[in-house]
């Protein structure tokens, strides 16, 4: 008993030394169980966010205002599916099956980013999502390119390359609207008003209230804290909003010379908790859409197996 716990702490020391030396941890390396669990939770929820994130934007594919916008939006939504796949693959290297991940999403055991529980009411929302939501995701994901787990870091590098297209196409939509008619400008401002605060919530609770932050930082799963990343996002967004001539809906937003950052108002944490807990405007709709998609895909998966089996039989007969 004593020997095995001694062995355990020896392994843990080697693991931590590797992390401290900025070496990556790879799937077959020994890792503390809590590190593995923490990663499965974080990467799979990140993957679920990409997959569920297709829904609010998918809502506008058939109603995109021009063929160009439609082609772009289709490509973007396809990217989100791809990002989900990269992340699911990374999660599976930790020893959990894809089917189990799906199960966790569909039963509500695993969470996804609360932002996707808000509705996309107008075309300007597609612009605001690209500009703000993908912009916030980039801030977070650039930081995660340096995460300690190799497969996660590699997925992040790939995703970051594609994500800047997402943000730029969104900002372009906002630019066109903001320079358009009074109605279009009002539409853009309304979208900014509705998406600003939920976007700030994407970075998670304040550092002091974040349940997983301590060990995540020690293990270098997370490289920067929620509040640091949120500040970075606010700082970069102000000039972008000014350029659009739109107003960020926060009376307390103000440059602080001493800090070298913008001060900003307090997030409505009750709303954050409620939406995360299932009471957002679209929680039910999103999960239901996933469930239906999964059920309706059943026969496709069955057919794939049947086809593969038939091919195998044919090959056996040919070689016999």
């Amino acid at each position, binding site marked *: 008993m004593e020997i095995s716990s001694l062995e355990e702490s020896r392994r843990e020391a080697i693991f931590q030394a590797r992390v401290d030396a900025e070496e990556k941890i790879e799937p077959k390396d020994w890792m503390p169980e809590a590190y593995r669990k923490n990663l499965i939770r974080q990467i799979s929820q990140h993957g679920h966010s990409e997959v569920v994130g297709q829904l609010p934007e998918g809502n506008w594919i058939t109603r995109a205002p021009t063929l160009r916008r439609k082609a772009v939006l289709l490509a973007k939504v*396809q990217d989100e599916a791809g990002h989900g796949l990269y992340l699911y693959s990374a999660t599976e290297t930790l020893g959990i099956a894809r089917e189990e991940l799906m199960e966790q999403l569909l039963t509500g055991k695993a969470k996804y980013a609360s932002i996707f529980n808000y509705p996309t009411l107008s075309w300007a929302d597609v612009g605001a999502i690209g500009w703000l939501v993908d912009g916030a995701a980039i801030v977070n994901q650039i930081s995660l390119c340096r995460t300690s787990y190799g497969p996660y870091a590699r997925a992040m590098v790939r995703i970051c390359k*594609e994500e800047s297209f997402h943000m730029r196409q969104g900002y372009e939509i906002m630019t066109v609207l903001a320079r358009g008619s009074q109605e279009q400008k009002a539409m853009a401002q309304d979208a900014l008003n509705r998406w600003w605060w939920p976007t700030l919530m994407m970075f998670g609770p304040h550092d002091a209230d974040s349940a997983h932050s301590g060990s995540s930082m020690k293990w270098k799963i997370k490289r920067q804290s929620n509040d640091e990343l949120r500040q970075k996002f606010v700082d970069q967004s102000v000039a972008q909003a000014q350029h659009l001539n739109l107003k960020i809906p926060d009376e307390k937003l103000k440059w602080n010379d001493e800090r070298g950052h913008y001060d900003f108002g307090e997030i409505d944490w009750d709303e954050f908790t409620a939406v995360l807990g299932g009471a957002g405007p679209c929680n039910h709709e999103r999960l239901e859409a996933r469930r239906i998609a999964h059920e309706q895909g059943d026969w496709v998966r069955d057919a794939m*197996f049947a086809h593969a089996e038939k091919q195998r039989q044919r090959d056996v007969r040919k070689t016999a």
Partner: protein
Amino acid sequence: MNKHLPLWEVFLRSRRGLEHKHVGSLHAADPEQAMQYARDVYTRRMEGCSIWVVLANDIHASQEAEGEAFFDPAEDKVYRHASFYDVPDDLKL
């Protein structure tokens, strides 16, 4: 349905003259489908001009636990590197 789709590893040649490099993995029922998925997931922006897909189960990997015994013999053979040898500075060697 409880059957799991098998796992495939995907390798891409990014352009002619370069080797195939591992880029990730996916699930598919057969090689044909694995190939189509690999195209859709890993080459949406012309990242490759050739794809290999390999059943993950068919890959034999060295074991991390045996890493020391397996790789260390190369460590004390510095004479296998060109930089081990002293040659006159003014000659191109």
